[in-house]
């Protein structure tokens, strides 16, 4: 018999070798459920994916042919850690469209925007240091903060974005406890996952708070150019002028997530640390990807493509909002994003959206359960829905299926409690779809969940 590859002994052996930080890097039931959403028959409203099928294959062919003809050896070679100058010039063009003036030296090209979150956290956070994030926050940022053993404090979001009054209260409280946060992480425009946009007044105040308290702000702006209605808001970076705001951008949503290209703009001393961190992480961003961006930008049509995406996604957003109004019960509420990729739905608090996902998967439809966007167990009655990655037919059908399951659960709960109490938690989006919007950046927003973790999850079986 082959020598036993032992289990418990191995287990102990490896357990003893793991870094303390891995204890908070957890896989979850939800992640295991998400594995089932990849089945082709599942309508997935779960991803955060742009629709790359809209990108013209001819353009892709022309771009790669040009690289092959003109810069083959360079494309196959390492590059500078901060990125190719040509690529940084393309980035200057993109940020200019958002009202930001940057020198090429203010920038580092990164392997997607996700790497910026990682590098900034690596540069700033010692175990136990405080990161302030939104509640709900971008689910993909959670494992990053966790892996550096940050203590994450989440500030509630409403229809005007992060509640700056709560932020200030929280900062005071932390101050009183002798804990000084290192940075505030925010997605001010069309936030992932809630879809809401921070108002101008709050943007101004946030930048003031950063200056008053000498705190850094990591502004994550992947969707800024994907606005479907209303006026663009100035970025925090523009308002701040680059003193306390670190700015994260990406080509993922305006070109392709597959090329893995993002960037960070930061004050020189911070940028230097990020540069060193990046050197350690991956030496440099893919040269091939960077040259693809350069060749693509030289064709001069990148704005046209973003315009086409805006049109496609606007229609899909409207389809999803209409379908929600048609198929979801009156107990549900949702945000009305003016851009971006996501709608955030809040259900009555007796519905746990992780369990609901298990049920919805039987009807071949998927979403992201809200708990992924919180570190403190809240969000269990909410869900994130993506409208960019599915066509209108799939969106409508997907929402119909989820709505049916939600209605079943609401009815069952009514039966179990012997009454159908009006739920104060839930308000319905009341504006008819064609009504003029008073609040172009967020529409009416239902309260985001306030519930704390209940100790009602167990299994001794």
């Amino acid at each position: 018999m082959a020598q036993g590859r032992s289990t418990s002994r191995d287990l102990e052996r490896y357990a003893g070798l793991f870094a303390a930080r891995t204890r908070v890097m957890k896989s979850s039931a939800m992640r295991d459920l998400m594995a089932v959403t990849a089945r082709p028959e599942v309508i997935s409203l779960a991803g955060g994916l742009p629709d790359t099928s809209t990108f013209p294959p001819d353009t892709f062919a022309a771009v790669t042919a040009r690289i092959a003809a003109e810069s083959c050896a360079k494309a196959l070679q390492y590059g500078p850690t901060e990125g190719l100058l040509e690529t940084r010039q393309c980035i200057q063009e993109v940020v200019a469209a958002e009202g930001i003036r940057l020198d090429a030296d203010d920038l580092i090209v990164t392997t997607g925007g996700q790497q910026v979150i990682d590098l900034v956290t690596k540069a700033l956070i010692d175990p136990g240091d405080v990161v302030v994030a939104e509640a709900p926050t971008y689910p993909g940022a959670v494992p990053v903060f966790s892996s550096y053993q940050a203590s994450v404090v989440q500030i509630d979001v409403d229809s005007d974005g992060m509640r700056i009054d709560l932020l200030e209260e929280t900062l005071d409280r932390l101050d009183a406890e002798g804990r000084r946060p290192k940075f505030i992480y925010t997605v001010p425009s069309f936030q992932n996952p809630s879809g809401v946009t921070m108002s101008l007044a709050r943007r101004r105040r946030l930048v003031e708070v950063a200056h008053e308290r000498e705190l850094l702000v990591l502004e994550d702006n992947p969707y800024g150019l994907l606005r479907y209605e209303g006026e663009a808001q100035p970025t925090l970076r523009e308002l701040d002028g680059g003193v306390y705001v670190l700015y994260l951008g990406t080509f993922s949503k305006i070109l392709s997530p597959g090329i893995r290209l993002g960037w960070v703009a930061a004050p020189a001393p911070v940028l230097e640390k990020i540069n060193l961190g990046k050197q350690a992480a991956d030496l440099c961003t893919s040269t091939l990807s960077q040259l693809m961006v350069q060749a693509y930008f030289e064709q001069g049509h990148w704005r046209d493509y973003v315009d086409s995406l805006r049109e496609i996604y606007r229609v899909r957003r409207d389809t999803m909002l209409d379908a929600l109004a048609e198929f979801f019960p009156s107990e549900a509420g949702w945000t009305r994003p003016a851009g971006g990729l996501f709608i955030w739905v809040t259900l009555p608090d007796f519905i746990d959206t992780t369990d609901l996902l298990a049920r919805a998967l039987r009807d071949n439809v998927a979403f992201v359960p809200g708990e992924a966007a919180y570190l403190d167990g809240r969000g269990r009655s909410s869900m994130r829905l993506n409208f960019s990655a599915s066509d209108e037919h799939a969106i409508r059908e997907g929402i119909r299926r989820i709505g049916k399951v939600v209605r079943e659960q609401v009815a069952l709960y009514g039966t179990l409690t012997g009454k159908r109490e009006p739920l104060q938690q839930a308000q319905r989006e009341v504006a008819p779809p064609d009504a003029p919007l008073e609040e172009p950046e967020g529409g009416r927003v239902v309260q985001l969940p306030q519930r704390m973790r209940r100790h009602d999850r167990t299994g001794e079986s």
Partner: protein
Amino acid sequence: MSRVAVLKGGNSLERQVSLRSGARVEDALERLGHDVMPIDVGTDLVDRLKADPPDAAFVALHGRDGEDGTVQELLEILGIPYTGSGILACIRSMDKVLTKHLLLDAGIPTPEFFAFNETAFRELGAAEALPAIEERLDFPIVVKPAGQGSALGIKFASSAEHVPAALVAAFSYDSKVVLERHVKGRDLAVSIIEGDGEVAALPIVEAVPREEDFYDFEARYEIGRTEFICPADLPETVAARAESLAVGAYRLLGCYGFGRVDLMLEEATGELFVLEVNSVPGLTETSLLPQAAEAAGISFDALVGRIVELSFERAGTPAA
């Protein structure tokens, strides 16, 4: 050397765990010199098995389809020897309600419970019976889907107001749910492996959650989040009784080859209760049965080898 298909993955909610069990089994089979045919179970399962029939199928599927007798039925039809329990034992053990009734009838202690399907609430006014149930079981009450293999959907209702939401959650997984008295105490697993015509209990594993006050789905499959003690530190008489109850439950349901019986040792009374029987227990790095086998001096490869041999024995075909 035999050609062994490893059935894994599939569409069950435990897909990920099954893929991990399957991958480990494949490695072991290769080391044992078998020709391995990995199959991520899907709509082409029968076609694949018919086109290229293996000598045996190792069922490394957990949850729906793999553990409930469905795949076993197909393998019977195709005449392919397969590992583990047969159809009837799978049906019995996958359905916690059926299991618990059988245990009760046989005098094997299991926590007091009530079970309902959704129509009882929707059409027969079962909600009116909840107060009486709550009185009988006392809080906290464990609410769980009848047919979910993992800890998914299991809720702990600490008071009457939490029961309806817990039921809604459990009904997300199955049309039948169990409300069960919560047994506070130690979480024990008795793994069972057959050999030489005997049904033998392996050393008992105790699962002690490290950080959280419940034993949840996440902790269950993760290295470092639950501490497993094997053999569990138990008085000899308690260990012997746990083993005999486990073997009794395993035999009662008609399991074959291997399995795992989960029990609770009640802190207040010292009584043992059988919670459930798993006909296809996990075989991942953190799973309990392989740990128990290891503690008994049976390596993972030997364990897998024996499980495959037993499949041939049942089918009456000699191992190639």
